């Protein structure tokens, strides 16, 4: 059972400001969805379930790019920074985190 305060907590963790009138609706929706996905607990998992049983042609694998710069440094920097909502002297403007 999700309580109203669980929704408040989840919204805070998700960094979402949710209007009070939307919270009850969300509680009902999330509860229905979580109720549905709970059927996963009925799935019987074999003790030896392991990724090494995958067929050799299986495409999901832990894929990492080579550990070096993929693009020449600074190539897109100006274009990327031009999208920032607020800039000052080549810095992104953010509010103060700590008070004096």
């Amino acid at each position: 059972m999700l309580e109203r305060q669980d929704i408040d907590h989840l919204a805070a963790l998700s960094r979402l400001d949710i209007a009070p009138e939307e919270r009850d609706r969300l509680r009902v929706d999330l509860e229905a969805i979580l109720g549905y996905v709970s059927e996963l607990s009925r799935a019987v998992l074999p003790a030896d379930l392991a990724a090494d049983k995958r067929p050799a042609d299986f495409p999901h694998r832990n894929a990492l790019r080579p550990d070096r710069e993929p693009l020449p440094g600074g190539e897109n920097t100006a274009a990327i920074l031009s999208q920032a909502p607020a800039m000052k002297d080549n810095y992104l403007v953010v509010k103060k985190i700590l008070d004096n």
Partner: protein
Amino acid sequence: MTKIDLDQLTIVSAQQALRRGDWSALELTEAYLTRIADRDPELHAYLEVFADAKTQAQVADRRFKEGTAEPLTGIPLAIKDNILIKDRVASAASKMLENYRAVYDATVIDKLKKQGAVFLGRTNMDEFAMGGSTENSAYGPTKNPVDETRVSGGSSGGSAAAVAAGLALAALGSDTGGSIRQPAAFCGTVGFKPTYGAVSRYGLMSMASSLDQIGPLARTVADAEAVFAAIRGRDPFDATSFDFAVSRSKPKKSIKIGVPESFLGQGGIDKEVLDNFSVTLDKLKEQGVEAVKVDLPSLKYALASYYVLMPAEVSANLARFDGMRYGAKVAGADLLGDYLQTRGQKFGSEVRRRIMLGTYVLSAGYYDAYYRQADRVRELIRLDYATAFGQVDLIATPTTPTPAFALGEKIADPLQMYLEDIFTVPINLAGLPGLSVPSGQGSTGLPLGLQLVAPWREDDFLLRVGKMVEECQA
């Protein structure tokens, strides 16, 4: 100039006409722009029609004159709004990115530009590709061209409607749990989700990275194949991408298609869908295809597994939208307030719901019961398919459990909307290639689709059998 019949045109026939000089790429693009001006105000398949489409077509015409034309030169395409085209707005149909301009080309766009394809515009979608009806677009839904009181499907609904209504010759979509195949089925077009990794996602806005794949929507399987041929292949900017050789070819007589009968008999599937499915299978049998029963016992947990794993990845991927670096910003009282207000106001309700759901299933105390269990069930599903493909060459189901539903019918009940994904989601979980081919109409006169699924990397074989389905419809 020979008249251009947009309702009969395919990429293959347009290419021939362009090479013969029946008409120019400019005339072809103008024909589409006229049709868009006529029909799109009602359908709303496009979020933006590019002002320079004719200029792009003129560049293509020069390539025909110079003799440097490639298979997609001058072909007018529509691009889903979550795929980046340099210097153009890419909004993912969200208020969060309403004014965002792409800094670079997605790899698929780069490849299509090199071919000389013409981009007509960017198509409507569910916000950040989350939904099955385009009703979650921040800019209003796309209507189904076959029946404008019904949804076009989603999330690539704008791309499907554009192709179905002759507002583009083909389109790109993205498919995380059925977002290419389901709208294709609803609108009566072909929709193809390639093997995970067959097409680079560099420049596709990430939704759920272990599931996302770019693919084509087109009028025919041959057209989908032509687009796929242009965009596939390994890309150093997407580490999951890979090259694979053109797959086996099998003589027609010996193709074995598996039908997961117990999965189809679970209830909740429209009778007209099941009837259409068995009629289509019968037609394939007349072509010499053998249909056999297969057992995929874990498939019944696929949708539940998907609706844990997908939101978990969504909650992580969408954390980047913070109002600091790019996209919209709504000022709050302090730094935390900036986050809360920007994300709370600029994300739509379905996106917010999925972020919260993902946050929940990943949180301490729930992780094992939800995320870890879902991930292990995903492994079971993969092994089920691997076993089944030891016995059959392909697996067939309907693409969707219902035909296109009415606008507004499911929007208030997210779980009902999610159940529409029942046949498409397992394929993404397993990373398999899946193809939706039109299979005629149900008793209500709405289009339906047959979904074919092939083993990993058997995309070419899948497309070949897809053409057989088309032939037996004719």
